[in-house]
């Protein structure tokens, strides 16, 4: 195989490489089969030919749907299903449609239709991951698709509430069936992972890890210990980096929480700066309104008055001097008269 194989998937969180079930399934399949993929986390599915993620790019070939990607990888001899017997291959196909038919509707409902989960987690998560104008459109679009997928199968006489009850019931039954099928084996078909293991992990791991506020499937899943062990083991064996990153992230958030007190000096500094800024702005405004003119006119009037004062003072002095000289001279004239 020539060229790099690139796989575009949704963002990851909660210790998972990606939060979207199908992307996670494809990525897991690649890890199982040892495909040297370059993973790109993106939030822009418009570049995909089908308008959905995951997308696989290899040279000029672009595969836009999960099925196409798996078929493409199989054609190029990248597959973890090669070691399966014919009957096991048949079983894989059958169990994949079991997931599609019984488990997927409930998972879509849990993520997209359930109001609380959608508003608290799904919509903000996907909006944050996608670029600017898309973040307003994309979550609603994906929700509409999920709604169509869940409810279009039923006739008119059936209400949405009844469908909800049924899909959750089906999903719980499906989890029971999976748990029975897995038993104590490490993987569903013998000792080696298959594409079906990738799908089960892709669907179940997000339910197990996500902090959904409404998660009836999680409690049911936790009641099947072999399935939870199965997910945890795959996560540990094939995605150790993501677990590490998640722990690091958790530590960071903890540090941030404890570091809030140390941020206080910064806060006061900011407050002081803001105060200074406000005061300068107000003073500036006051100047602009006319304070400057008033002050200027004061100075001018002072300057205008002062020279008069300076000029008049010498005059008066002279006047006084004249008077004094007069006074000095007067007695000279009077004295002789007085003597007479």
């Amino acid at each position: 195989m020539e060229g790099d194989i690139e796989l575009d998937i949704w963002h990851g969180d909660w210790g998972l490489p990606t939060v979207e079930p199908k992307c996670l399934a494809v990525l897991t399949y690649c890890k199982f089969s040892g495909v040297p993929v370059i993973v790109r986390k993106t939030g822009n599915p418009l570049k995909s030919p089908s308008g959905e993620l995951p997308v696989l790019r290899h040279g000029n070939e672009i595969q836009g749907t999960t099925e196409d990607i798996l078929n493409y990888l199989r054609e190029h001899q990248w597959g973890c299903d090669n070691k399966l017997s014919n009957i096991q291959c048949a079983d894989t196909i059958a169990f994949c449609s079991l997931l599609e038919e019984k488990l997927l509707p409930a998972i879509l409902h849990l993520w997209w239709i359930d109001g609380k989960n959608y508003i608290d987690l799904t919509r903000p998560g996907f909006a944050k991951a996608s670029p600017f104008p898309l973040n307003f459109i994309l979550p609603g679009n994906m929700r509409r698709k999920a709604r169509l997928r869940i409810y279009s199968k039923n006739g008119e006489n059936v209400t949405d509430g009844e469908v909800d009850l049924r899909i959750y019931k089906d999903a719980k039954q499906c989890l029971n069936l999976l748990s029975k099928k897995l038993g104590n084996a490490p993987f569903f078909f013998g000792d080696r992972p298959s594409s079906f293991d990738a799908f089960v992990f892709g669907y179940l791991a997000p339910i197990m890890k996500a902090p959904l506020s409404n998660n009836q499937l999680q409690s049911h899943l936790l009641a099947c210990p072999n399935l939870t062990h199965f997910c945890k083991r795959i996560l540990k064996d094939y995605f150790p980096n993501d677990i590490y990153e998640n722990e690091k992230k958790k530590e960071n958030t903890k540090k941030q929480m404890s570091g809030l007190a140390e941020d206080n000096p910064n806060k006061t500094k900011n407050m002081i700066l803001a105060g200074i800024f406000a005061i300068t702005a107000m003073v500036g405004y006051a100047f602009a309104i006319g304070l400057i003119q008033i002050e200027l006119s004061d100075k001018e009037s002072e300057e205008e008055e002062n020279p008069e004062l300076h000029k008049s003072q010498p005059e008066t002095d002279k006047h006084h001097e004249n008077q004094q000289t007069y006074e000095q001279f007067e007695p000279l004239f009077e004295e002789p008269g007085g003597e007479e």
Partner: protein
Amino acid sequence: MSSWVVESVQAEIGASVPWPDDVALYQPYEVEQILLPDSANCLSVKTFLHMCGLNFNLELRVNAEEMSPSGKVPFIKVGAFLISELDPIIAFVNTKGFHISKHLSDTQQSEMRAYMALVENVLVNAELYLSWCHEDVYYEITKPRYSSCYPWPINLILPLKKFAEIKSRLSSIGWYNKSFEDVCEEINTCCQALSERLGNQAYFFGDKPTELDALVFGHLFTLITTDLPVTKFAEVIQKYENLVDFCDKIEDTYFKKKNLKA
């Protein structure tokens, strides 16, 4: 009241009442009206009831679809209950104490469910695709038959309404944009899986019939025997000899015998 809501009530009341004699199975008219997907579903349910050894009277109604609690045919009427579609009917019959898959192990039970999902996922959608999205079949078969029982203005409107419904259902799973060859390929994969699983056995799980056998027979037999302008699907299925033999055998055991008796 819908069949799903009734289920929990059935578990409590249903178990104590035995299978009555006046159970009726409602479906549209076979010759003039019924469509390929409905026909396959009806045949599956009938086969299942025969396998359980349960009696029922076949009731043909023009408006069976509107009578059904979930809007889908067939449905059965047992005492006060109406139950439609195969899965709820199986669950109901089980509460009456008739289990035809009791002998299976846990793993086999889940395998059986998986193959049933495969048939529902592939064959049912392929039948819908063929009847409503293939132009020749739609204009020659589906439209005249679906509108046959309605008077003038609505016989033009209702097929369109139904078509819109089927279209949104198929496009939500990405089947609407598939080409006819893609659908044939899907059927081929499905039949290959079923054929592998069946091998040389009489039934899918040993020598006793299960729900899966009823479901597979209903769909494959309908696809092989229905006379359509397009025979590609039948050709694909007929490549798998063991599946064809399986259909013949079930037909012999459960339908020819009954006819002879009658």
